[in-house]
Each structure stands twice: as C-alpha cells, then as structure tokens.
C-alpha cells in the first residue's frame, strides 16, 4: 500500500521536532510549530472510487426489500438513505451513542457499525416496524408516550429498540437491571430518570400485552 510512501515523507518532516524543541517550545509558550508537524494528520492516499453497488434483498420489519448496497455501506446508512427509514438516527456513527440501535434477529445492534451486506439473511427491525399496521403503538412506545419520557428524543428510537430487545431477554427487570439493559444508549438531555420511569412502565405494558 502507498501508506508507506506517506510515512517516508513524514519521517523527514517530523524529525525536525526533537524532544529538545518540545521543551523549549513549552517554556517559550505557544511557539509556532512548523507546518510540517501537522502533515501527520494527512491520511493515506489510496483511492478506490467507484466501488459498485450490488442489488440485494434485505428483510426489514418483516418485509423483503430490494436495495442497491455498496460494499462498505453500513446498515444505518442503507436504512436512512436508501430505504427512507429515518427513525433510526446517527448520533455518533461510532458505536458509542446508541441512537442507531436496531434489532437484528431480535438482538440490539448499533446499525452504524454493521455492514449491510452482513445482514442479508437476517430479520432487521427498526422503530418503524414496532407499531401495529393499524397504528396501535407497541407497548414500549405507548409507555414512553404515557410517561412523557425523553426530551429532545434524538436518542429515543434507539433507546426504545434497546428496551424492546432487552425485554425479550428479561421481561421483569428491576430498575437497575433495566438501566443495565439500555446502558448502551446515550441521552445528552440526561433525562435518564424519566427514561427509566417510562421503560419500567414499558416492561409492565409488555408483560400485559
């Protein structure tokens, strides 16, 4: 790979900053660091444009969907930009916020970190697939509405999917267990208390349903 070419170029540049310069720099305070020192931020150069899409069948919310998918495409991207299922949110795209959580064969996954091509034969459930055809809300959704759970709600659909998945494995959780169950979801409004109120009600509704 041409990675190594870049590194060679960088070598010459970065050698100019020795430990001694570091220390001098600190003492002088905010000395100008040479432009070359920032070249390290340059990425490797290999281009591989025009990687083609392939038409595949996905099973989303119980229905087969034919869709053109790039090799490197994530499930979140396919859902949002190819299938119009924008209820799945991208909060970080790095598996550390949970807004993109969907169920794959009933198990919660970060869809930002799943390649679409790896779920070809699996059942994917998104927030759009929870309510009944007649619009009747899923018990977890109904509980959230009844408890006025969440604030800005950008995290909400991910939390709901996590809770739905978790309740399949533990239908009668304590509040602490529920917190553990949805701990892979971040709420920046920090409405964790009200979220847990609504999800405990969700557990109750789910058991009754």
């Amino acid at each position, binding site marked *: 790979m041409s990675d190594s070419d870049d590194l060679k170029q960088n070598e010459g540049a970065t050698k100019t900053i020795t430990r001694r310069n570091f220390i001098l720099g*600190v003492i002088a305070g*905010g000395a100008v660091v040479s432009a070359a020192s920032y070249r390290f931020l340059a990425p490797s150069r290999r281009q591989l444009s025009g990687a083609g899409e392939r038409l595949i069948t996905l099973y989303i919310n119980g229905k087969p969907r034919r869709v053109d998918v790039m090799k490197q495409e994530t499930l979140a991207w396919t859902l949002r930009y190819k299938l119009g299922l924008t209820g799945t949110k991208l909060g970080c*795209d790095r598996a550390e916020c949970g807004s993109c959580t969907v169920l794959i064969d009933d198990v919660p996954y970060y869809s930002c970190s799943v390649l679409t091509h790896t779920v070809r034969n699996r059942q994917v459930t998104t*927030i759009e697939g929870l309510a009944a055809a007649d619009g009747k809300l899923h018990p977890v959704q109904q509980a959230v*509405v009844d408890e006025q759970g969440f604030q*800005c*709600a950008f995290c909400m659909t991910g939390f709901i999917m996590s809770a739905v998945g978790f309740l399949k494995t533990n239908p009668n959780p304590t509040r602490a267990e529920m917190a553990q169950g949805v701990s892979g979801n*971040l709420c920046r409004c920090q409405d964790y208390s*009200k979220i847990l109120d609504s999800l405990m009600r969700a557990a109750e509704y789910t058991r009754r349903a």
Partner: protein
Amino acid sequence: MAGVELTKESLKPIPFGTGYKLIGHDFSTNDLVAKATGASKYAEDFRAEGMLFCRLVLSPMPHARVKRINAEKALAMPGVRGILTPDEVPGHANYVNDNGTMIKADRFSELALADEPMYQGEPILAVAAVDELTCAEAIEAIEIEMEPLPFNTDPLDSLRPGSANAREEGNVWVPNPPPSRESQLAVLKWTDEEFAAEKEGKLPMGHAPEEWSYGDLDAGFKNAALVLDETFSTEDVSHQCLEPRTTMAFWQNGKLYLYTGTQSTMQTVPAIARWMHMPEENVVFISEYTGGGFGSKITGALTLVIPALLSKKLNAPVMMRISREEEHFIGRARPGIRARTKVGFAKDGRITALDMFLVSDAGSYGSNGDGAACAQITSLLYQPAAMRWRNVTVATNTLPRSAQSAPGGMQAIAIIEPVLSKAARKLGVDQVALRRVNSPEGKAEYGPPGPGGKRSYVTSCYLKQALDAGAKQFNWNARVARSKQSGTKVRGVGVALSCYHGGTSGFDGLIVITPQGRVKIYTGIGNLGTEAFVDVHRATAEILNVPWDTIDLVWGDTSKNLPYSCHSGGSQTIHAMTRAGHAVGLECAQRLKEVAAKSLGGEPADYEVANLRVSRKGGGAGMSFAEASKAAIKLGGIYDGHDVNPAVNKYTKHSVAAHAGEGLVASATDNYPHDGDSFSFLACFAEVETDVETGKYHITDYLGYADVGTVIHPAALGGQVLGRSVLGMAHAIGQKWVIDPQYGVTVAQRFYTNKPPSILDVPVDMKWNALNIPDPETPVGARGCGEPPVGGGCAAITNALADALGDNIFQRVPVNADTILTSYEAGRPMQNPFLAHI
C-alpha cells in the same frame, strides 16, 4: 416580603395543579407520538430531489493562514459538483436590531469559512458532490498550503510574560466604556512576581480589566471569624448535542429554505439574513425537531450558512451532514474558569465578605459573559455582605465558547460551594444551616449597584423553604449522622444551593380560531425537547377554558407564519411564553366576546368563554367557536387579522397579515409588569460512595428541590430538574477536553475520551420536588428551570466527595479516580489546578 405569605403550612408543597384544569397536570405533549414512532423529522431526515452532499475541511492547526488551495484535481473528479472557499463567504455585516438601532459589524466574530483559522477544527473549505464518498475522495485530492501562526490554548499561559497571543490583536478582552457593550482585544501580560503565587498552588492575580464591588470588603474580612482563600478551576465542557448540527438547504424562487435543529424558530430568521446578507423575508426556516441544544443552537451559525451558499452556487439542494468529530469542533462549549476566591465567614457561617478573581477562557472568537454571570450568580445565591469581582477574559486558540445551560452560574456554584463546605467543617456548622444563613430570600438583591445607586433584585425567592423541605425529604440529618467509612468505602453527603435566571418578558402570542372551531396556536419557540414550547400553551388553553385536545399547535416552520417568540434557552420559555400565552388567551377571549356581542347583542362583558363556546353569562344566547370564527371573518378588521394589534412585534404583524381571513385571529404582546428580575432556585442534595483503593466513586442518591413558581407540567419539570442536574454532575464526574498544548490539538474528540455520562454513571433512582409557590410577579406564576439545577448538580457531588474524603483532594473538576487516588494518599491536592485539558 412581597407576594405569598409563608407559614409553616406553606412548606408543604401545594399539590400540583390545584385550582387548574390543565396547569400542573401531566399530559403527553403534541410531538411525542411522532418522536416515539420515528416519524418526527430532524434536519438530516429531510430529502430533496437532486440533493448533493457537502463535507467540510477543518483546519488541522490551532492558528494558521490559508496560503493556497488547489482543488483542480478534486473538481475534475466525477461526481464532484463544487467547492466553497473562504473568499466566497459574506463578510461581517452591520444590522439593525428590533429597536431600530444600528449594530456595527463585529470584526472579531467568526465567518462561515476561515482563511485564518483560529482553532483546530475551524472549517476552511467545503466540498459538494453527489455522495459523501465522492466528497471524501475529492477532499483528499485537495492541496492546502497553510502557514502556521503563533497560538496559545491555555488562558493562564497566555498571561505569562513572553507567551504567544491567540490573536494578532491581543490576548485579553477589554470592555469598551459604557454604554457600549462591545469589547476590544488588548495585550495583557502579568509579571513573574505576580505569577509567584502559582508555586503555592494559588491562582496568580495580576491586572484584571473587569471589576466591580459593593459593600465594605475590608471590614467584612476584618470582622470575619474565618477567612478562606481558595483556588478552583472548572473544565471546558462541550455541549455535545446528540443531534449533530446537520443542515439541509435549497433555494426556490429566490427564497432560501433551511432545515436544521434550533432553539428558536423565529429568531433564527434575522440571524440567517444577517449572515447571508439577504432580506429576512426571503428566508424560510424549518426546524420541527431539535436533538438538543443546551445553549449551542440559539440562532444562526456557520453550519447554516455553508450549505446555503453552496446550494445557491450549485443550484441544487445541499445536505451538510456534521459528523460527531466535527460536532466536537464546531459545536461550542462552556468556558472553563480558573478562580481564586477569598471569603470571610462569621461564626454562624454568614458570608461577611467575598473577593472573587476569575480567569475565563473565551476561546477564539469574541468575548463571553460567563465571568460576569459567575459574579452575578455568586452575589445573588450567597448574599455576601460585601463583594468584589475581578475578571480577565482571555482569548485562546480553542473552539469558540457559547452559552451552555447556566452559563457562568454553573461555574460560580462549582467554585463557591467547595469554599462553603470547607468553612462549615472549620466552623463546626451544619452544611444545610450554613447555606440557610446565606440563602437569598424574598426580593433579594444581587450584583453591584446600577448607575442610579440601586441594586437589582429578584421577583421572589423561597430558597430557604426549598432547602428545609429538601433536607427533610433527603433525610439530611439522618444521613449526616450515619457512619462514613466501612471497609474500603467512604461515603459522604453534600448539599448545594443553585440558581439562575428564570425568565424574560415581552414576547407575543398568536391564535387563529378556525371556522371548524379548532384553536390553532402558533409558536415561534424552538422545539428543543424540554417541551416548554408546548407546555406554555396550557396557560392559553386554561384561560380560553378549552379542552387540550381542541388545540392544534403549529410550530417549527416560518412559512406557517409564526409570532415573535423567545428562543428556548436561558430558562426563559416557561416564564416568557406563559406570559405571552396568557396575554393572547385574554385577547382571544375578549375578541370572542366582542364578536358575540356584535352578532347576538349586548356588551362583550355580558359574555363568557367556556367549552368552545362564547355565551351570555347565566345562560341564554351564545355561539360556538366555529360560529364565532365565521362571524369574525365577516366582521374583518381586527377580528380576522386584516387589522393587527398595534402592540405586537413586526414579525408578529407580518404573520397576522398572512393569516388574515383564516378565522378569528388574535395576537397580543406580553406587557405585564414585573417588579424584579425572574430567577429560579434549587436546593440540591447528593450522597456519594467512594472506594479509596480504586478512586472510583458512585453517586448513590440525588434530590433536586425546586423553587420555580407554579408547576406547569410536572413530568417535564421533573425531567428538567434531574436532566439539568445530571448535566451539572457531568462536570463533576468526568466530562472534559483533552488538548496537547504543544500542538494546540485536541486528542479527545470521541465520547469515550471526552466522557459524557452514561445511564450507569448516575443514581438509578433520583428524586425531585418543587415548592409550587407561584411567582407573584407573573400572571401564571411560573418560571423556567433549564439552567438553575446545573450548578447544584455539580456542586452537590463535589461537596459530598469532600465530605467523604476531606478538603484536600481536589481543586478542580472533573474529579476522577486519578485525582482521588493520588491526592488521598498524599493528603493534598496532587493535580495542578491550572493545568487544563488533561
């Protein structure tokens, strides 16, 4: 004390909603089902025919000049549609504010793209292409030559002799003489002698450009039983809204359509017009849902301008998706403050004198008011008999700061509360008692005397009652009496006072009663998520005496012609917009009565409004809202919006005119008086359990007890009290920046490195409560609660930690395992309080 007479009995919270049908009762807000089903559309969820994607190039350097951009190869790549460079963005513009005053362009404010980036991560170039992959490959084909310039990322270092300045013009913001509210940059360096205090772990105190004082400081210290001189630093903390500030833009028939998340629908329009140098009437702004703001999405921003300009240039819709890393850089942050406070205490803990010295970090663009607010909140919340404030606001090559929930107030409380805790221990006074004796009450005064020699004061304050009720609910005395250590675990309890501004006034309301008999309420408040934009209209519905389900709330799209509303920020909404909602409710009822009188005879005063009808008092003739609406259209003029209430704002007038003839159109402005400034207050309580062998601690319990006036929507208020408390806790338990000062570069732009709290980092069962005592100075008695809990959320934790571990563990937040482990063994704070961003 004005307003409600307080007896022992009144300590019991009034059951929320007493005397009201809607106010104080829980309900599900109008936007909730859409949110829970994924139907709600945030900016990135919109699509437009032929939509291009746009990605940014950010400056890799903290301060540099862009010398040359060569995009030839990129522009030749298939799928690349165009680029936007710094020379294509509009410059700073003068503008005329609502009062007709010309505001001169601020040459220090940021532009959409920078040719001299002032911080690492500042956008310098944008590329549009058919998809993001093409954008990325094009960007990697662009050559940018940059000349590095001197930089400084550390405010204290910037004051050292011989250190680099963040900007060519200087390193410190100096306010112009009044009445100007602008500041200028100047060079300020302290001497080595002034820096000597640093060696003793004390904040050096050289010249400070900003200062005020009141009372006899010297006498206060002389008469004090205890004088403490403490140094404490707070951390820069990014807003990190979960929805990145993605924006989609397109142009149609000369109008700009912009989709993004915002805290204000209406007030963003003039801001965009200003950034874009275009007339306001050509801006259509759509923002139905917003994934968090916390002060960082108040109005316009460069993220709106870039796609707008690119869309115009390329004649196609442009979606600029902002990544989490980009959000870290351009998403704003709360400034960290390094503080030194000398506080004198009487034997009972009463503060006799308070001398506060602050070094505030303004980041790379413009000054900020956090240092000033820090002093204001200190003087209000702790009522020192004498106080002096000195402040240096330093420019650094770090990302621009903006208001973040309780700007300045959060830092004030984080800085002062540990001093109070230490004093209580030294004086042998109970922590709650010490806070009670210092707590404001009634029309408490704050800040320095104004030009007329009088000090400002608040509308009302019942914080002592909240403190007492909270201490009772939290079982404070029992918790204090319990043993502290068992095994390797040590627990501690903490109490903190907290407050912030709780409302503004002077906004408008707009109602259309349709010929179908529906009550359409229009609002220009941003849907930030706090639900205040819905909740305030419970007051309107209450006055109109209509069931909630007959209300259609219209929000989030300026093409729907909305009234002039406050932005959902600064905790002002509940106060400001229940006032406007109250005013327009009364106006609407009056117009209904007039329509009825004109149609059915008699005087308007003979009629009353109830159950979607306007009818003669005591029975008799009446008409339904639907009939009244049709009658209003027939009457025209003021009744159907062909004439407009002259008191309302120009934007409201414009919107009323647009609704003319749609039904009974009522608009009104809030010109209710209020004697004093609105502030909300809380008493916050926490318990922590620390493992002294690992330095790990866990918050086991938390209670926020609020004095926020009338409770409008209990569930939403609870969410605010605890949500904002946790935002404060985040400052105590770990949220931070990490910058390598050698390169002036951030190394912690990911959540796993800058550490916003997870659900397992806070107590599993937190509690809140509210006094529910109406504010006597506002019609519904309600004040806001977005900012007030933040400082208390932070300080209750640090106070509990100090209770557990002693006063010699930390001089800065956040406090983590590393802080505790090293300092607990050494018996003194081992982390340099001035060293930021580690």
